[in-house]
């Protein structure tokens, strides 16, 4: 009976994993659809990044089981990672300035 119950639990968990996997596949398909839309490059980037972030969230929470860890650990991982990722976005205005050829900031 204990073996049957553990087998049933294992099947339920694999069912959940399968559901998350199918969501990830669907989101990947959405990214491919976005790639062929007739939209501005910046819009395309925003939409694709949004989908990628949702995919990453699903993978981290369910495939990597971060949601089952202690809350302090989850916060530590998320806050440190997101902080550094946001801090990397500092120089985008410099990249657009490169296109016009201006070597130095005018201010």
């Amino acid at each position: 009976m204990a073996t049957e119950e553990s087998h049933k639990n294992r099947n339920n968990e694999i069912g959940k994993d399968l559901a998350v996997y199918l969501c990830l596949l669907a989101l990947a398909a959405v990214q491919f659809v976005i790639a062929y839309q007739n939209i501005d490059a910046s819009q395309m980037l925003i939409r694709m990044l949004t989908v990628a972030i949702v995919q990453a969230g699903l993978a981290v929470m369910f495939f990597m089981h971060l949601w089952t860890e202690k809350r302090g650990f989850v916060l530590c991982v998320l806050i440190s990672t997101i902080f550094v990722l946001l801090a990397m976005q500092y120089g985008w205005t410099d990249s657009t300035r490169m296109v016009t050829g201006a070597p130095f900031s005018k201010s």
Partner: protein
Amino acid sequence: MTEANLTMGGQESSLTGLGPAFSIPTKKLAMWLFIIADTMTFAACLVAYGFVRNGSANWPRPFHSITNVALMTFILLTSSLTMLIGLRAARAGDKAAAFRWTMITAAAGILFGVLHVREWIGLIGEGMTLFHNPWGTPLFGASFFSITGLHLTHVTGGVIALIVVGIRYKSGRYNADDIEVLGLYWHFVDLVWMFVVPLVYLLNLAH
């Protein structure tokens, strides 16, 4: 007391007298710290790629077909699922099934690598290298091969680890915790690919 259990179960440290902050096995914590560090590395590479792409007037868009990329994405996502199934089997004590699914994951990783190298050979045949490409700025070749090469290196390392850990798990040297820690790494490799595909491939599709 095994090393894996050192920080489990609210045991106080003999050095500090404090309980564990995260209640997580040492190996798993080490893998998470590595994953966080590697996330920064890949993010830096992708941001640098975005920077040069944004700042280049003649950035090429040479990818005509998405079939290969779609297939590679499917294989890598499926390998994450097979890794999870292997972990569930390991947790349930089914050693044979856990080993089988771990080897299937490794095989998927090898298939991904083969498709990737085949794509590279096709692009090199068209004239694209680290320092040159026939369609525009040479930075395109440099950034493409650097980012995809870094990812492929991670996949290759993961495949080797899957084979070694799988064999040692089967022989009884490793346990289900080790399969879980390796699974974390493999899911991370898949997660990075979810960002590489739209930024490096899909944004450079020829319309």
